[in-house]
């Protein structure tokens, strides 16, 4: 029994604790089930799911960069029907929330996906991926254009009763604009940030390191950028935020909550330490005890300006 209250309510979505695992970094849960007690997670955001199966981009698809990683996987996934048939039954055994990240090239496909997953037992929420940087069409295009964001979110909103999370792209001039458009369209929750578009070049061979040329940057390298965007969006909208971007440990997670996130998602760190999400959860509890807090909700958005050093 936990000594602090860890459950959180994100609009219509209740989570037993605020620690999620980010889409694309935890497969469909089964890959980690012998190493991580899935029952302890707040939720699993499953691999980006499209209407039909996708083979993904050519190799190389991933490259290490300074304190980070660029990926251009290209939404390789089994497709929504195989997800429901083959992946979801396994996840239903656990009490953590199952959040399906849905991705598409065209608006109509987003609508079809939302409709297909509405009412399916074991699906607790949808995460609308309008911010994948590795798709030739669609994907990120919706996420960088506020009008397209509004349109696709409101279309999906009409097709589902599930809690709707919209995952925002950081590849914009002012993320508050797309954040507001998503909320106006009917988003219950915002998740941010997806990866930052970048590239890597091999000087010796004079070639790009990724077959796709560009990829999405993740990992600790992006944490200050992501943290800033979460803080900025938290000022601008009233819906709850799931903060993510380079969270490697409990302290990182706490920082996102102080900036205004009601929950957090651990991403790239899952590749390095499969148990990191549980360590983050335990670390947040420890932090709350040390800070004299009894409820995790109490710290959300409580960051203050730093005091001048002279005040001793």
């Amino acid at each position, binding site marked *: 029994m936990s000594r602090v209250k860890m459950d959180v309510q994100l609009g219509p979505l209740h989570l037993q604790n605020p620690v999620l695992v980010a889409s694309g970094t935890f497969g469909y849960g089964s*890959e980690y089930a012998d190493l991580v007690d899935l029952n302890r997670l707040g939720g699993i955001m499953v*691999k980006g799911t499209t209407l039909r199966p996708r083979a993904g981009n050519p190799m190389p698809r*991933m490259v*290490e960069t300074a304190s980070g*990683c660029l990926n251009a*996987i290209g939404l*390789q996934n089994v497709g929504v029907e195989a997800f429901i048939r083959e992946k979801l039954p396994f996840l239903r055994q656990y009490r953590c929330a199952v959040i399906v990240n849905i991705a598409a090239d065209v608006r109509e496909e987003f609508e079809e996906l939302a409709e297909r997953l509405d009412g399916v037992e074991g699906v607790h929420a949808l995460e609308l991926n309008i911010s994948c940087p590795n798709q030739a069409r669609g994907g990120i295009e919706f996420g960088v254009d506020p009008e397209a964001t509004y349109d696709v979110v409101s279309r999906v909103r009409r097709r589902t009763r599930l809690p709707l999370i919209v995952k925002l792209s950081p590849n914009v001039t002012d993320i508050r604009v797309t954040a507001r458009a998503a909320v106006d369209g009917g988003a219950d929750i915002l998740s941010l940030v997806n990866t930052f578009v970048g590239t890597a070049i091999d000087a010796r061979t004079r070639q790009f390191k990724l077959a796709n040329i560009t990829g999405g940057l993740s990992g600790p390298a992006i944490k200050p950028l992501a943290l800033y965007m979460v803080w900025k969006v938290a000022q601008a909208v009233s819906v709850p935020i799931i903060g993510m971007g380079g969270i490697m440990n409990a302290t990182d997670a706490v920082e996102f909550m102080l900036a205004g996130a009601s929950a957090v998602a651990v991403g790239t760190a899952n*590749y390095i330490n499969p*148990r990191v999400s549980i360590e983050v959860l335990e670390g947040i509890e420890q932090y709350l005890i040390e800070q004299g807090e009894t409820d995790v909700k109490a710290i959300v958005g409580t960051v203050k300006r730093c005091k001048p050093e002279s005040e001793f």
Partner: protein
Amino acid sequence: MRCAEYCEVVANQPVATDQFEIEIHCPTVARYAQPGQFVQMRVQSGYEPLFSRPFSVFHRKPDRDTFSVVYLVRGTFTQLLAHKQAGDRVFVVGPLGNRFVVAEPQHEKVHVLVAGGVGAPPLYLLAEEMVHHGIAHSNVVVINGARRQDLLVCQGHFAGLGVRLFTATEDGSAGIKGKVTDVLESLREQGDLAPERCQIYACGPTAMLEAVAAFAQQHHVPCQVSLETLMPCGLGVCLGCAVKIRTGDGYDYKRACVDGPIFDAAEVLWR
């Protein structure tokens, strides 16, 4: 059964030029690792480099609860690994991936293990298992190759097993002057590679694997290859280690870390 935990280094010794063998206390890997399987290791304390690295299991010592891997010092990660001393800790996830499958009926087959450089360690574990299972020493053929004599790995270990050992170096400093495929060709000419009673198992640089696979295909000899790619997670979720595997009319991307690293050479699309 697999683990993800901090493990203590028992020993870390040079075995050849720029090559080390590190022995690690880890009961799970010591007990359950199979020939061809690997572990993901993390030795860095910060994020530089960010990812763990995969290493094929070389030795298992279940009585000591240890396993070892052999590595070549060639980048930031392996330099950090080379500095680890007895008593230091490393993070280990494993054992991971599939294993080499010993062709049946195993006592009637000629098993040809083709190793290139640091590809040798998992094949040593396989040869050791074969000898343990009572497969005749004369039916276990090891072809160990490298650019130079000082880059050969596991040579003494293979010799110690008493199997048929052939050596090839590109500069002729040990064994025949040439490549592992030259040894395969001469064995074939001697009639030692009858397709119906022979199985090749290969691990080494991709160019070598491709050449061995081409030889196997040309002469209709079944062949398993262990593919090496960047493996950020090793657990099948990042999809960064995809390899092209033939399907009916095209190909599919399979994950080298969980669908492999061992694949039927005939199914691999090399380009």
